[in-house]
């Protein structure tokens, strides 16, 4: 123990003696560790934002839609569409899903008195507002009665208001969608951008009955999906089983046949997105790690130069009674100390960098604790791996030759 302390002191003296060189050597590790921490944290931050967004959709959300498959980048529907009949069966029989809403989506131009905007128009029922927990800023939602009687009412998002009614109160005014006039009854609270970057305020909500009758007319068309909320978080699985059973019955699927629809719960959605962002984080982290390895090579290079430069010192130490292991330890500690010191500075820089990004872009990056551990652990590992070869070279020097080295 005492011996180790003495060797430790010797190593730190050597680092201190060549301060400029030591700092330059550390720079590779500093940048590498900071990069690892910042990229991993950025990935984590993105994940968190997406997750929040999904939670914002309502924690007990279920999405029921026709089975689709990706073919050459296009979503191709595989199963029977979901029709009004399916929705009614669910509405009548479901115990675990108190709120259900069809969702009819259509991309259309919304035209106001002072502007227009291409947007997504969603035909939904009154339950939609419960399911997604979106709130109204001004006015009100359309009511159950409005949906039943297919009133030409709509609720708009903030982006639509800005484009169509700049500086005006939109409530009570009219907009036209696909030549059909709708009266604006409510304005949604601002939600901001979604996890995937889409604008959650670029939206028009109208009774699904109205969309079905007025815009699709006689065209027989299934719902894009049915949104439902489970009784509680504990009943999400029950709700999924219930919906599956009811829909299988409704679609007359035989016992051994596969479902022709998909039910995704909010938890599953979170899992999928966290998988995607996880892969992204890993990829970014891997790229950043390469800079750490380059830093490690820098350390090896400098240590080799240092060993050559200090050949006589090594010879003297050996003559005076240092064992090979003493020399090995000394140089290894030097390398590890260099990379560790670089690691510490890198961690500090990474954390500060995250703060700066937050200040500048408002994108909150929580510094992931494990990214610090990874950065630190990696720095140590690199010190040992890339320090070993030069240290071994030093230890294996022949004292007689080393003493004569000019």
């Amino acid at each position: 123990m005492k011996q180790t302390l003495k060797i430790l002191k010797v190593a730190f003296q050597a680092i201190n003696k060549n301060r400029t060189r030591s700092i330059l050597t550390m720079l590779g590790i500093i940048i590498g560790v900071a990069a690892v921490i910042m990229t991993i944290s950025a990935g984590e931050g993105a994940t968190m934002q997406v997750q929040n967004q999904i939670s914002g959709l309502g924690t007990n959300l279920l999405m029921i839609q026709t089975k689709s498959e990706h073919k050459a980048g296009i979503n191709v529907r595989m199963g029977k569409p979901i029709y009004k009949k399916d929705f009614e069966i669910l509405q009548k029989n479901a115990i675990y899903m108190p709120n259900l809403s069809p969702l009819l989506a259509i991309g259309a131009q919304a035209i106001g008195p002072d502007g227009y905007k291409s947007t997504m128009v969603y035909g939904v029922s009154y339950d939609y507002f419960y399911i997604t927990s979106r709130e109204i800023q001004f006015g009100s939602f359309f009511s159950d009665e409005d949906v039943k009687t297919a009133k030409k009412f709509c609720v708009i998002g903030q982006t639509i208001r800005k484009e169509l009614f700049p500086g005006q109160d939109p409530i009570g005014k009219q907009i036209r969608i696909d030549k059909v006039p709708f009266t604006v009854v409510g304005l949604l609270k601002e939600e901001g951008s979604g996890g995937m970057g889409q604008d959650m305020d670029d939206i028009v909500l109208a009774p699904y009955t109205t969309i079905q009758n007025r815009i699709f007319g006689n065209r027989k068309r299934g719902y894009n999906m049915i949104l439902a909320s489970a009784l509680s978080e504990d009943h999400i699985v029950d709700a999924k089983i219930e919906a599956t059973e009811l829909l299988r019955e409704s679609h007359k699927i035989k016992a051994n046949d596969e479902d022709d629809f998909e039910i995704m719960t909010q938890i599953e959605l979170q899992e999928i997105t966290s998988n995607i962002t996880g892969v992204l984080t890993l990829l970014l982290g891997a790229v950043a790690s390469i800079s750490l390895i380059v830093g490690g090579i820098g350390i090896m290079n400098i240590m080799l130069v240092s060993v050559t430069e200090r050949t006589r010192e090594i010879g003297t130490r050996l003559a005076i009674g240092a064992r090979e292991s003493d020399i090995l330890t000394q140089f290894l500690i030097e390398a590890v100390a260099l990379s560790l010191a670089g690691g510490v500075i890198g961690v500090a820089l990474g954390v500060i960098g995250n703060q700066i990004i937050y200040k500048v872009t408002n994108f909150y990056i929580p510094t992931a604790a494990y990214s610090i551990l990874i950065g630190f652990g990696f720095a140590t590992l690199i010190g040992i791996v890339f320090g070993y070869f030069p240290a071994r070279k030093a230890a294996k020097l022949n004292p007689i030759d080393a003493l004569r080295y000019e």
Partner: protein
Amino acid sequence: MPLKKVIETKKISRVFKNGDIEVYALTDIDLVIEEGEFVAIMGASGSGKSTFLNILGCLDQPTSGDYYLDAVHVNKLSKNQLADIRNQKIGFIFQSYNLLSRTTALENVELPLVYDRTGRFSNSKELAIKALGEVGLEDRIYHKTNELSGGQQQRVAIARALVNEPALILSDEATGNLDSKTSIEVADLFVRLNNEGKTILMITHEPEIAQFAKRMIYMRDGRILTDEIIKDRSTKESALKDLELTAEPIE
């Protein structure tokens, strides 16, 4: 009571192989050096004196023959054991001092104690200060090596060779890099240390420095040519006087 044998070599040879050619650097050397001796080894380059010193200093092993250092049979020791023997029994002094640069005199002198594994030295700092006192550098303890003159640096090196209380002090051309006056001072320091009981073996090619020793060995072609007691040993005073005489400008 017979004096302790610090060095005893029996028919030591050292052969270097260069391809198919065998070169005898040392041939059948028998030598005994007892405690308290002050021996100078002289010889031309290639006489084998450096090879001999390397073996005596446990930096190298003889090809054949036996070597006992302070009653330890050195031949069959492992690398680590050799390192420990060097640490415990030998004090090295080199021609170019071999001090750690930009390091204080004190830290340099403490260096052998860093590698001590016997635990016989409890306070390395005190011991280092004492050793620096013995070489007359008590007021240079915290000076860094680059702030010291050549003579002072060599005295730090001598203190470093003393600090572990070795059985034998080995000096390899200790005065080779010093001017004549400083060389005499270093040689005089050897004499004083020897008077205090230290066993010293020095290699030199300067006859006037060798003249300070008690016994002179002359080597040639890997063998001991002469081995005799020096009758008219130099002292600091006589050497300085000789120096003045030779320094007279020639008209």
